[in-house]
C-alpha cells in the first residue's frame, strides 16, 4: 500500500537520519578525525593552539636506524674486554646525544646483535611503540592458528549425536558470555605468583617439585599467559561458528566417503575441510581483527608490564591519548593500526580467494 509516507523520498531520509547521524557521529567522524589529528600536535587539554606538523608524529613513531659500534680499544689498539672476555662497547647515548649525529637524536636502543667484534644496535625513536607492535603481531600470529584450530577441534568433537552433548556445548561457550574484564580479573587470581590456582595445581601435580612462578610478573611468561587466557576466553565463540559451518555439509557426502572406505583423516581432508572453506575465511579474519584490538586483558592484568613485555598497539593508543593526554600520538598509532589491519585483511582475502 502506497501512502504518502512510504513513497515520499523525504520521509525515507527522515527515518534514516537518526541511525545515519549516530553512525556518522561515532564511527565516520572519529575515523577521519584520527587521520586529521595525527598530522597535528593536538593535546587533550592545552593552552597552546593546535598546529599542523605534517608527518612528524609518524616520523617520531616509526623511525628506526642501525648503529654499528666498534669495541673500545686501549692505546695499543687491543680490544678492551671485561672479566668474561666480552668486548666493551661505547654507550649508545654517546651517539644519540652527539650533536655530530643529528639524525639519531632522541633515539634509544631497542635491541642489538653482534657481528664479528662489532655490535649492531637497532635504535628506535619510540621503543615502546616498537615493542607494542611486535607484541601485537606475536599475539595475532599465535592466536589465529591456536584459537582457530582449537575451536575447530572442539566443534568436531561436539558435532556428534551423543547424550548430554549440549552440556559440553554450554560449558565451552560460557566464557564468551562473561565480560572480558571479569574474566581477566579471574585469571589474575589464577596466575597469581604466590597462591594462584595454576601454581597450586602444578605443584600438586608434581608433588611439590614445581617452583611457583609469577606468571604475569615475568617478562618471559607474561605475554604467553595472556595469550593462553585469551584463547580460552573466545574459543567457544569460534567453535559455534565452526559448528554452523559443519552443519551445512551434507550428511550424504560423509556416506559417500564411508562407502569408499575413507579413514577419519581422509574424510576430514576431502569432505569436512573443503566444506568449511568459507567458514575458515570468516573465522580467520574475525580472530585477526580481534587480536589486533587486544586491550582489556592488558589493561586489567598487566598494564603493559613488566618492562613493556605486554604492551600492545591499542593499549598504547589509549595510554597516550588519555593517560599522557597526547591525542595526536594516540591518533597516529590508531591510523598505523588501521593500515596494518587493512593490509592483513586484504592479503588474507587474496590468499583465500575462490580459485576458478
Amino acid at each position, binding site marked *: 500500500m502506497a501512502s504518502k509516507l512510504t513513497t515520499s523520498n523525504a520521509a525515507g531520509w527522515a527515518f534514516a537520519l537518526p541511525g545515519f547521524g549516530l553512525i556518522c557521529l561515532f564511527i565516520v567522524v572519529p575515523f577521519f578525525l584520527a587521520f586529521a589529528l595525527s598530522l597535528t600536535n593536538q593535546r587533550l587539554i592545552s593552552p597552546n593552539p593546535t598546529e599542523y606538523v605534517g608527518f612528524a608524529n609518524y616520523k617520531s613513531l616509526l623511525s628506526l636506524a642501525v648503529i654499528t659500534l666498534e669495541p673500545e680499544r686501549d692505546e695499543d689498539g687491543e680490544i678492551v674486554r671485561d672479566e668474561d672476555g666480552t668486548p666493551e662497547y661505547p654507550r649508545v647515548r654517546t651517539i644519540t646525544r652527539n650533536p655530530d649525529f643529528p639524525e639519531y637524536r632522541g633515539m634509544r636502543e631497542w635491541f642489538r646483535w653482534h657481528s664479528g667484534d662489532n655490535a649492531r644496535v637497532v635504535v628506535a625513536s619510540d621503543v615502546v611503540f616498537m615493542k607494542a607492535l611486535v607484541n601485537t603481531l606475536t599475539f595475532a600470529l599465535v592466536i589465529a592458528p591456536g584459537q582457530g584450530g582449537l575451536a575447530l577441534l572442539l566443534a568436531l568433537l561436539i558435532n556428534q549425536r551423543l547424550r548430554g552433548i549440549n552440556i559440553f556445548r554450554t560449558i565451552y561457550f560460557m566464557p564468551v558470555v562473561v565480560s572480558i574484564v571479569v574474566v581477566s580479573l579471574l585469571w589474575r587470581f589464577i596466575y597469581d605468583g604466590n597462591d594462584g590456582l595454576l601454581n597450586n595445581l602444578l605443584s600438586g601435580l608434581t608433588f611439590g617439585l614445581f617452583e611457583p612462578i609469577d606468571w604475569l610478573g615475568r617478562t618471559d611468561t607474561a605475554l604467553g599467559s595472556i595469550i593462553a587466557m585469551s584463547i580460552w576466553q573466545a574459543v567457544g565463540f569460534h567453535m559455534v561458528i565452526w559448528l554452523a559451518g559443519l552443519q551445512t555439509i*551434507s550428511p550424504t557426502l560423509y*556416506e559417500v*566417503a*564411508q562407502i*569408499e*572406505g*575413507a579413514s577419519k583423516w581422509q574424510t576430514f581432508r576431502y569432505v569436512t575441510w*573443503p566444506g568449511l572453506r568459507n567458514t575458515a575465511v570468516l573465522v580467520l579474519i574475525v580472530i585477526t581483527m580481534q587480536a589486533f584490538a587486544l586491550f582489556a586483558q592488558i589493561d586489567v592484568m598487566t598494564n603493559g608490564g613488566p618492562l613493556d613485555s605486554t604492551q600492545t598497539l591499542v593499549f598504547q593508543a589509549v595510554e597516550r591519548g588519555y593517560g599522557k593526554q597526547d591525542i595526536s600520538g594516540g591518533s597516529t598509532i590508531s591510523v598505523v593500526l588501521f593500515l596494518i589491519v587493512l593490509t592483513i585483511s586484504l592479503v588474507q582475502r587474496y590468499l583465500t580467494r575462490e580459485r576458478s
Partner: protein
Amino acid sequence: MADVSLSQVRKSFGSAEVIKGVDIDISDGEFVVFVGPSGCGKSTLLRMIAGLEDITSGTLEIDGRVVNDVQPKDRGIAMVFQTYAIFPHMSVRENVAFGLTIAGVSRDEKERKVNEAARILQMEHLLDRRPSQLSGGQRQRVAIGRAIVRDPAVFLFDEPLSNLDAALRMDMRMEIGKLHNQLGATMIYVTHDQVEAMTLADKIVVLRDGVVQQIGAPMELYHKPANLFVAGFIGSPSMNFMDVEVLEAAGDGVTVKAPALDPVKLHVDEQTYAAHSKAKLGLRPQYLSVPDDASKGTLHGTVALVERLGTETVVNVELTRGGRIVAALSEDKPLDIGSEIALDFDPAKAHLFAEP
C-alpha cells in the same frame, strides 16, 4: 558379479521397527527395483545392503558371504544417491576418481579408469568442469561414474532420477538400462516412479510398512497381484475396487454380485471362496470399455469428471446404484459431464480378492 540374499532381515530405530523380517533373493546380474509408498522402508533396506545402517537381526549375504558386520567398502557395492552427493570443490575428474584417490591408486590407473567410465557415460567433454557448471542430469552422470570406477559387483540406486525433470528422467532411465546391459552387474534400484520400475526391472519388490508384499516380474505383478495392496499400487490410474458378495463358487469360477453390478461369473484360480462370503472385485481402469450399445453394459452411471490425455481418456463415473469407478478409455473421447454412460468389462480380466 554377485548375488544378494536377505533372510529375515529386520531393522529397528529405537523401539520403532521399520523393516519387519524381509526375505529377498537376488541373483547375479539381476535388476531389482524396490517400490512402495513413502516411508515404507525402501531406503532403509537399501542402506542396510550398503552398510550405512546396521542390521538389527537376520542375515545379509553378498556373493555367498555373510556381510552383516563387513565395512561398506569391503562389500563390493557402490551407491548412487538422489541428491547426487558429488563434491562441489572437486572437478568432475576428481569426483569420479574419488574412490581411487581414497584407495591410493596410482595416477596412471586412475586416469585410465576415469577415462573408461567417462567413455561409458559419454561425458569425456565434462571431465574438467566443476559440478556448479553441470546440469542435474550431468551431475547424476558424474555420481554414476564414481560408482562405475569402483567396479562394484552390486550397484545400489536410491531414487537417482527423482530430482530430474520428466524428459531428462526418460533419457537417464534408458541410459541406466543400457548401463545394466553393458556392465552386467547386479543392480538394486529404489524408486517412486512406476514407469521406472516397470521398464527397468527384471524383478520388482513391493514393500509396505517394512513388509514384502510381493516379489515378481513386472508383468506378473500387473496381471497377478498377490493382494489388494499390490493390485492398487501397481498400475496407473489405480485399480478400482468394489465390495461384492459371492453368490456361488463352482470349480472353475465364482459368481459375484454387488449393488451396482448384476451377477457376473469370474474365472478364479487357487483361492477358494465360500458362498455368501464377502470379497473385493478389482477392475483395472484400462480394461473397462464403453459398449457400442448403451443399453448393454454391466455398469451404469453418469460422468463426473473427464481428463483427456490425447492417447486416452480418464473418466470418473458416478454409478447409479452407488459407488464410483474410474475408466481409462483407450481413445480420445469427448464426454459431457453429467451425461449417462455405460461400462463393460471382460470377466477374464477382473480380479477377485478375499476379504482380509
